[in-house]
């Protein structure tokens, strides 16, 4: 006899990593597969959300299919003393979807430490946004570049390795 308390978060994640079933009562279907009650599963998922294990239950769109065909990863060599302040300002721009400070890789000739992802329907649109970011960073930025995506090679959610 399996009870809900014996079902681990790991088993719940494994059951949902391929996505939520597209049926009227998706949690009931997953709960039945796991051998637990629907209410128990919903409670457990809510707890996982509260802990931050689940960020959200949502759709991952394909930008290309939505007409956002230009996707540029802009990268910037920003003065370390200013990066916290300037990174926050770049991250707050409405067209920047991801913005991170990352380590430089000088041995590989990679001097950029600020990454900001910019999406648009044309390259001209992305270039205009890049110019705005350059103006915002001003003298604190020594050099920058933009890497356009050519192709999505893989896009899946988190996959757990099989155990045992």
């Amino acid at each position, binding site marked *: 006899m399996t009870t809900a308390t014996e079902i681990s*978060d790991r088993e719940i*994640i494994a059951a*949902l*990593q391929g996505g*939520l079933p*597209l049926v*009227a*009562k998706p*949690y*009931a279907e997953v709960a039945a597969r796991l051998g637990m009650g629907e209410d128990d599963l*919903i409670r457990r*998922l*809510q707890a*996982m959300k509260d802990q*931050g*294990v*689940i960020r*959200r*239950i*949502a*759709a*991952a*769109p*394909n930008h290309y*299919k*939505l*007409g956002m065909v230009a996707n540029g*990863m802009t990268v910037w060599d920003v003065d370390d003393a200013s*990066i*916290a302040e300037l*990174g*926050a300002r770049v*991250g*707050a721009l409405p067209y*920047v*979807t*991801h913005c*991170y*400070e*990352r*380590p430089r*890789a000088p041995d*590989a000739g*990679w001097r950029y430490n600020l*990454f900001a992802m910019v999406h648009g329907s044309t390259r001209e649109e992305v270039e205009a946004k890049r110019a705005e970011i350059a103006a915002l960073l001003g003298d604190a930025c020594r050099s920058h*570049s933009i*890497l356009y*995506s*050519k*192709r*999505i*090679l*893989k*896009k*899946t*959610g*988190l*996959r*757990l*390795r099989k155990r045992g």
Partner: protein
Amino acid sequence: MLDDTSRALINRLQDDLPMDSRPFAAVGRELGLSEDEVIARIKEMKEAGAVTRFGPFFDAAAMGGAFCLCAMEVPPERFEEVMTEVNAFPEVAHNYERDHALSMWFVLATETPEGIADTAARIERETGLPVLCFPKLQEFFIGFRVTA
């Protein structure tokens, strides 16, 4: 192309789904659509490739795991072969080709922080190419939305 109803739906669905026994009915009420129509449209968008995945987004870090952006300089003549080798790793969550000497950019998601270096080393052995790791030091934006 998506019609206005599907655009409204995909904009809504990039935000969190309510924790409801019948979540599609709840979203339908917000948008003036029936539960059946919400489900049918999500299926249609998945089949058309406009939605690549629908479900929970797990945070590897909150589960004790880690994410890391990595890049490789792949010789053009080996690109397809290396892509197949890299994509075969279940730890590779996303992989993009970009127009730069560093032509392959992928995200590793592993169950432990040590898993990143270990997986990067295994990819280096498998492909014979160096893997550069760019872990995030600071995040300046949380969330990810595009307007359809």
